[in-house]
Each structure stands twice: as structure tokens, then as C-alpha cells.
């Protein structure tokens, strides 16, 4: 009955010209390359999967420890470990080709060239629907965070990527020095199709047993329910400032959390840390969202996107 009722609400959503069957997106870094999560979650039932951040060449990531738990949150310092674009194409694209869901590939580089070369190779793969540019990872020395430090360097990078990316181009933002409104206006002008907001927040943990910093790279990125109120503010401000489609994320762990992001202006929602706790979280969130909408007599998801002002 539940699933039958589900069909009463039209939950199709769009990111620019790309249609998603529903607004639930698996966030990058918490769903592996797809195959790892498949035994626990029917990937064809989410709107899209975003694979772990890829770089042109494999990257071994940071030394352990890589994860720390804080109040209602998680700090990670994975350091963007990944198998690189080539191995991903060989090992994972065949599996992803068996799916009907949207596939986004998150990428990062150490300079404009490596971003561009990665993007160029991936945009040629038919199965890939969107390329998400991570300019906000706090966990690697040159993980692109520097690109978000000034509007100029961001414009330069994204301008070049827009030229090579023929798929839906998504830019993933995190907390930045620049005003988020100014950033999304710029990205819209550059022809970016959508933004993902937000990446993790720079944070730090202490190891009380040896009285030293917990992570070898000192700072790490905070995610999970703890950051939700800050992520909501960022999504609100970004969608107020421009009409660029936004995938809202940060601490979503229930159907009503997802509704909140839609209400402040996101047209899709990402689920990250909640997937670590429960691999099927995205589907439970989707169901919770739908039943909230049904309970309110909402027929189409557009009725609530950006309604809370």
C-alpha cells in the first residue's frame, strides 16, 4: 500500500535539462563506486548516485585514522583516496551500465589541467549523466579547496571545464570565504547546470589518549546531522541569490530533513553520512519524504521547492 500511495505524489525533479526520477541523490564518498552499496540498496530506486571523488591518477588517501565521531556528526580525513579515472572506467562502468538510475561522477584535481583531463575522459563515457566538480574538499593539500578561495580562480577553472564537459556540469561547494550568493551567480553565468551544497565543514579532533591531534593532517571535514542547520542556511542563501538548480545536502537523515532542504530551495537532496549508518537510508528518506507530502496533500514536488521564505 505504501508504494502504491507513493505514486500519488509526483516526485520527478530536474537539474537544468536533466530529469531525475526522484530527488534523492547518493552523495559522493559514501556510496563507493556503486558496486559496494548495491547489495544493500536498490540503486534503481534513487534519483542518482554520485561516485567517490575521482582524480586523473589513483590516490592512496591519508594515513589512518581517517574517521572520528563527534556529537551527531562525523569527521573524516579520507584524503580523497580513489582508484583513478582509468580503473574506474574499466572496473565500475560495466556495472553502472546495468542500472537505469542517473550516474554522477565527482572529480577533483590538483591543478586546472588534472581537473580538465579527468573531466574530458569522463564526459566521453555515455553512461555518465553528470560530472560534479569538487572544489571544496578540506582534506587534501591541493584538493581544489584553493579554487574556491577566490572568485577569479574559481571562474578560471570552471570556465575551462564548461568547455570540455558535455554532460550536466555540477559544482560542489562547501563553506568558503567568498559570499555564497556571489559564487552561485558567477557559476550560473559560467553556464554551470547545478550546484551541490554543501561539502563538509573544516573541523578538528583531539586524541585524549596521547594528547595530540587526532588526524595526521590536523583538520578534517565535519558532516552528519550536526551540520544540517548550517547547510540549510547555505542552500537558502544560494537559491535566493540565483536560480541555479541546487542539490542540497548536509546531515539529512530523515524524510522531513529532506523536505526542509526542498522548502528552502533545493530541487534535489544528497544523502551522505546517513548512508554510513544505514546503507538503505536514502530509500527510507525518500519514503518519509513522500509520506510527508501525501499527508499534506501535496501533488507535485515543485509545490514545496523554495516555498519557505
Amino acid at each position, binding site marked *: 500500500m505504501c508504494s502504491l500511495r507513493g505514486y500519488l505524489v509526483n516526485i520527478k525533479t530536474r537539474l537544468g535539462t536533466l530529469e531525475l526520477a526522484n530527488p534523492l541523490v547518493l552523495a559522493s564518498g559514501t556510496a563507493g563506486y556503486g558496486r559496494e552499496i548495491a547489495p544493500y540498496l536498490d540503486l534503481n530506486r534513487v534519483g542518482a548516485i554520485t561516485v567517490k571523488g575521482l582524480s586523473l591518477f589513483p590516490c592512496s588517501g591519508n594515513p589512518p585514522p581517517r574517521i572520528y565521531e563527534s556529537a551527531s556528526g562525523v569527521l573524516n580525513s579520507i584524503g580523497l583516496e580513489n582508484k583513478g579515472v582509468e580503473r574506474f572506467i574499466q572496473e565500475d562502468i560495466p556495472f553502472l551500465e546495468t542500472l537505469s538510475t542517473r550516474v554522477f561522477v565527482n572529480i577533483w584535481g590538483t591543478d586546472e589541467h588534472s581537473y580538465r583531463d579527468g573531466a574530458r575522459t569522463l564526459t566521453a563515457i555515455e553512461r555518465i549523466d553528470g560530472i560534479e566538480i569538487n572544489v571544496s574538499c578540506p582534506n587534501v593539500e591541493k584538493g581544489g579547496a584553493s579554487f574556491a578561495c577566490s572568485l577569479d580562480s574559481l571562474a578560471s577553472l570552471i570556465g575551462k571545464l564548461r568547455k570540455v564537459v558535455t554532460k550536466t556540469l555540477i559544482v560542489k561547494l562547501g563553506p568558503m570565504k567568498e559570499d555564497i550568493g556571489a559564487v552561485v551567480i558567477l557559476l550560473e553565468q559560467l553556464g554551470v547546470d547545478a550546484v551541490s551544497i554543501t561539502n563538509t565543514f573544516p573541523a578538528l579532533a583531539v586524541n585524549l589518549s596521547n594528547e595530540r591531534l587526532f588526524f595526521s593532517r590536523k583538520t578534517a571535514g565535519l558532516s552528519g546531522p550536526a551540520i544540517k542547520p548550517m547547510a540549510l542556511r547555505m542552500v537558502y542563501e544560494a537559491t535566493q541569490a540565483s536560480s541555479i538548480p541546487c542539490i542540497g545536502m548536509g546531515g539529512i537523515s530523515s524524510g522531513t530533513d529532506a523536505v526542509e532542504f526542498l522548502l528552502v530551495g533545493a530541487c534535489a537532496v544528497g544523502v551522505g553520512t546517513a548512508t554510513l549508518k544505514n*546503507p538503505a537510508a536514502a530509500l527510507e528518506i525518500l519514503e518519509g519524504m513522500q509520506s510527508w507530502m501525501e499527508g499534506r496533500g501535496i501533488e507535485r514536488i515543485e509545490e514545496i521547492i523554495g516555498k519557505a521564505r
Partner: protein
Amino acid sequence: MNEAVITGKQIVGNFIEFTCTCAEVAQHAVPGQFVMVSVSPTLDPFLNRPLGILWAKDDSFALLFEVVGRGTSLLACLEKGDTLPVLGPLGNGYSLDASSALLLAGGRGVVTLHFLARRFKELGIPVSMLCGVRDSSEIMLERYIIECESGLRLFCCEEGVRGLFQGTVVDALEEYAALHPLAPETVIYTCGPEGMLRELAMHPLLEKRRVEVSLEALMGCGFGVCMSCARKSTEGYMHICSEGPVCALSEVTW
């Protein structure tokens, strides 16, 4: 996630043993595997905790955990009849193709080796089991040593306790090997604290032998998506939850 129902609770010193009913977990579990356990219905602590499987049979399985921090303290408050959301069984188990086995457990490392010894006993494979603990607060762990017909069982304690061998598992191993030279085909299985594993990895007695070890790491997901559980190995980083927790001791670097 599956819902396991706690059907039994036993306090064993600073450890708690839960017997649970959950067919999905119990019917698929093999020795060496673990489950991710939800420790709080609220948003804090958020992540699940990895716990080894003590045994599994029919629709039931058991957990044995040490109360060390926030999560295990919350778990310790659960009672018979409560439900425990669990994900699993996860990871790969010990290989069961030994013709004779020697199990070396340190502290809570006894959990998965207890399951392994039970299984070997069922399979009729001769198994000896040495288990060591730090001090007298842990001597109740002795009950998890499985008695096998042909094999030896020995429980030792680093602190002097009347009637117990005094020393570490490695000391016990040396003593044991001096009396009963290890048969060449005996496979060694071990699980325990880092220091002990490291000592074993360097130990001449185990040189060139097949040694399987079950490792621990801080975990985010437990099912292979987050890359939190990386550990240096001979081939770069290995991920304990998906490429372990059991692996060849020779693959581990220190």
C-alpha cells in the same frame, strides 16, 4: 538494517554477552565476520559500532563486547526483549580448510576465535586454543575457550593469578611449542591487540607458516563505501571492513 531481538544478556566482568534472534544474520554468519550495531535511537552517537560474531546457530547469534566508550556503554543498557538494529554479517571470515588449527586469542580477540573453534569442532578438525588476558579483571573470558577432544586449551594471564599460566599468549605459545612441536600443516589463526599481533608477525615460530589474522580498525560504514578503515598493507592500503577483517598475517605491515 535488520532488527535483532535480544533474548539473553549476561554480564561477564567488563564485558556483556547478548544472545540475539535474527535469522538474516545468524543463517549467513561464518566465523571471523562481524556486524555493525546501532547503539542509539537518537542522532548521537550517530555511527554504528563493529562487533565480532561470538557464535551463530539456526536463527540465533551472540555478541560479546567490552564496555570501553560511549557506544558500548549505551549498548550495555539494553535488556532482554529490546531490539538491536544490526547490519551484517559483514567482512570475510577465516578459511575453514585447515587440517589442524591453533588459535591464539588476546583479550576480546577471543570472540571470533570462539566461533571458529566451535565450527572446527563441528567439522571434526583438531583445534588447540590459547587465550591470554592482561589482568585478573578479564579472567572470566576463560569460559569462551572451547574444549576439543584432541586439542589443548590454555588460558593465561599476564598478571599472576593462582592456577593460571602467567604470561602472554606469545609466552604460552613458546612453552606449548617446546612441548608439542607445531605440525607443519597446522594453520594458525589469531586475533588480539596490536602489540600481540605485531609480536606474532615477527616471531620465528610462525615464520613461513600460514597465519590468518583478524584485524580491527576505526570504521565508518563497515560495508566498503567510505574508505575509513584503511590500514597499511604490503600492497598500499587495505580496507579492513571489505578486504578483511581476516587476512594473511604476512600481508600486514607494521
